[in-house]
């Protein structure tokens, strides 16, 4: 059966607009073969004239033209002149609204998933930027901000349809932590950096004791401690089941995170890491990955005065696993490719910059075996571009999630979210840590 891809895409769009959950959508049973594109796989050298076959939401085969058999009955899409890259993975975003619970500095029991609105236009704009997987996080106003959620940007109004689930069907995610000026405030918030670190240490020591009690109780329910949602979450971190995504900017704050990691042995991704270029060797020695943000000018707060786009290049040379992130809305998700291009501008290799948008962030979220590169068996998350991913003149043409088209620049509604216009933005002011009412003239 040959399917008219355009009609199929329109059908999907209509269904999605009607509010049907993604699970009800037509499953992609018929193979689709993309031919003629340059394929940036993020796991092999680029393939000049490539063939990519997907089926059932997964990548079936990829390779140079002639080396890959196109299955009988496959829909063949000639995309000559295009570039295909893996769906982009964002390790740090606030799509769909987020939270900064202001009742106290430790909020490990909070789940950001309980505060998300998948109807928020930011999801559509992220798809226009080629983003397919996202770590949505709480804000950085707390020492321990809450549980993050790893989402696949399937088209649905139910956040439950967006989860990336583990082998047991549970939603995956990390833990947001922060140091530096953002979590500092007045009591019950810490007023100094030392107190910030002490609060984190105290909580992890409590969590360790909590886990020990549970272990000692064994099968004897009467010896179990009362269930504590916060300590339970931190215990998952201590057990290596949940990655800490740690907001940190200044070089001394970065080293404080490394010190905590050393003490408690948790898995951590350094987030923002504005001074990474100053302490790259220390980061490399600790074997800790960095997810960095490239904003258009340094400053805006005391601890980002030394932010430099060369951080990515310096970390690459030091052998650190590097990703970029949007911190959407700080960087609009539609300009995420541009963030990596600024890394190239400041000396990062193009191959490394491409991996820093795809496979590296996937690895930081423990999802590197499922997504982030174009390899057989992985999720069919794809971006089709009309040119060099790092050129200002290039535009995302199509975004695919698990074998389904979720963005197509030729559809007017999608184009609106890509370029802006009536209804493409947020209903209300930006919130978070970042656009407070103290800003007065924020437009």
């Amino acid at each position, binding site marked *: 059966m040959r399917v008219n891809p355009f009609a199929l895409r329109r059908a999907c769009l209509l269904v999605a607009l009607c509010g049907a959950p993604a699970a009800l959508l037509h499953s992609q049973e018929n193979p689709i073969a993309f031919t003629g594109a340059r394929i940036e796989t993020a796991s092999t050298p680029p393939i000049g004239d490539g063939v990519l076959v997907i089926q059932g939401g997964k990548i079936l085969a990829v390779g140079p033209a002639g080396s890959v058999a196109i299955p009988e009955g496959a829909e063949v899409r000639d995309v000559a002149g295009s570039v295909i890259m893996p769906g982009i993975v964002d390790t740090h975003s606030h799509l769909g609204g987020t939270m900064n619970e202001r009742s106290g500095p430790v909020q490990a029991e909070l789940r950001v998933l309980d505060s998300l609105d998948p109807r928020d236009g930011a999801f559509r704009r992220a798809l226009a930027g080629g983003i397919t997987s996202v770590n949505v996080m709480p804000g950085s106003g707390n020492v321990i901000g809450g549980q993050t959620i790893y989402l696949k940007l399937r088209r649905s109004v139910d956040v439950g349809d967006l989860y990336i689930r583990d082998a047991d069907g549970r939603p995956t995610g990390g833990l947001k932590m922060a140091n530096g000026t953002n979590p500092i405030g007045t009591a019950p918030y810490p007023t100094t950096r030392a107190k910030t670190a002490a609060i984190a240490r105290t909580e992890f020591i409590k969590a360790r004791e909590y886990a020990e009690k549970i272990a000692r109780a064994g099968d004897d329910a009467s010896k179990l401690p009362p269930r504590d949602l916060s300590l339970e979450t931190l215990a998952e971190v201590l057990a290596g089941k949940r990655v800490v995504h740690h907001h940190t900017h200044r070089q001394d704050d970065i080293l404080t995170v490394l010190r905590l990691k050393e003490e408690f042995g948790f898995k951590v991704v350094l987030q923002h890491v504005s001074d990474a270029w100053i302490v790259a060797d220390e980061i490399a020695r600790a074997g800790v990955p960095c997810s960095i943000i490239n*904003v258009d000018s340094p400053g805006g707060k005391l601890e980002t005065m030394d932010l430099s786009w*060369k951080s990515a290049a310096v970390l690459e040379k030091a052998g650190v696993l590097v990703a970029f992130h949007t911190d959407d809305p700080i960087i609009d998700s539609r300009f995420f490719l541009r963030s990596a291009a600024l890394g190239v*501008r400041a000396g990062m290799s193009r191959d490394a910059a491409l991996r820093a948008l795809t496979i590296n962030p996937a690895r930081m979220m423990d999802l590197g075996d499922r997504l982030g590169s174009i390899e057989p068996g992985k999720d069919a998350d794809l971006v089709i571009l009309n040119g060099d991913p790092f050129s200002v003149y290039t535009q995302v043409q199509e975004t695919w999630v698990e074998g389904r088209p979720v963005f197509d620049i030729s559809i007017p509604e999608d184009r609106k979210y890509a370029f802006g216009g009536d209804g493409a933005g947020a209903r209300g*002011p930006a919130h978070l840590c970042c656009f407070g009412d103290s800003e007065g003239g924020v437009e």
Partner: protein
Amino acid sequence: MNGLSKALAPCSPARERGDGCLSESRCSRSGLLFQPRRTVISLINSVTAVVAVCVAAHAHAGGLAVLGGKVHTQAGPVIENGVVLIEDGRITAVGAQSEIAVPEGWEKLTAAVVTPGLVDAHSTVGLAGALNQAKGDKDELDKTEAIQPGLRAIDAFNARDPLVAWVRGFGVTTVHASPAAGSLIPGQTFVVKTTGRGADADALVPSAMVATSLGSPVLETERKAPTTRSKAAAMLRAEFIKAREYEEKRSRDDDKKPAFNINLEVLAAVLRGDIPLLFTANRHHDILTALRLKEEFGFKLILTGAAEASTVIDDIRAAGIAVIVHPTMARPFGDRENVSMETAAKLRAAGIPIALQSGYEGYVPRTRVLLFEAAIAAARGLGQEAALSAITIDAARLIGVADRVGSLEKGKDADLALYDGDPFEYTTHCTNVVINGEVFPGEPRE
């Protein structure tokens, strides 16, 4: 040494020689600092004279030649293998290298692409400091009163703020610095170069426009006016009516002559047409209110922001006004929720004069970079030539300094930006910047 401190370091002897000029120009211009009854034109002329003296006193021994694979003059076609000759801070010749010889002994700078120094038609750089600390360097907005036209940007501008050097590193040589659009009339703007010497030494126009705004950012939440759009407009109308009466009474020569009023003096100058309003409005109905006020009071108005301008194109065109279009990458929130990357292209296609801007940011990035905003506009319908004009000659015309800057022509200030490729490409670098013939480093590199 980090990128910022590197960018701040002086790079040529000419810069150091310029320091003596600072005190000289301060003295010469001290009488100018508040004379609202002078016209903008006379102010421009006075400052021009001062700057000319200043530059002449500290001229290069020889001249400077800037050679470019492509020279975008914005005053004619692109010149392949072009050269710009510079003496005494001014451009003395522009043309093909095959036709213009570089005199022996002149300093030479070479780049793949040369453009006029970029002109940011609306910015808060130098006022909204990099540290973003209240009582420190957060000088973009005074909220003590809703209407304060007497406040002047020149009195707050920190020429040595790191962000001034930062934007210069990407080719920005002239900035129209304005208070932030967070109250009805936050004060006067001024036009300044980015050499970093000081507000007076670098000023092109000490008082250029009066910043005025409508929209959500000017509205208060309670007990302080205005809390609604109607009140905001009523307050503006009342103030202009007061200024009109003040102007009439001030001309009297009896005991009923009102005392000098620092705010009404400025609004009277606005009503006379001596100084335009830099009017921030983003929502379509705020734009229409601005036009309604212009109709009532007859002031000159330049619209800025204008996120929803493409929905009221006919009204804007009929009013005969120019638009400084919102930053192309403006976040789609609040009054700018319907912002489009194609606004500039649409307005220009409708025949409305436009320029681009870095605008104002309350957090990060503390300043946007004009070059980057233009790059996105170029790629989203505006095109490269029009986008470059919108940040050079068109911007200079719009803010009234096209006689000095904005294009590479004989007799104009020697303000140039040098790039190692297409200036709009993400991975191109700005390699050098020239202001008044003085050479500065480009963007921070390793």
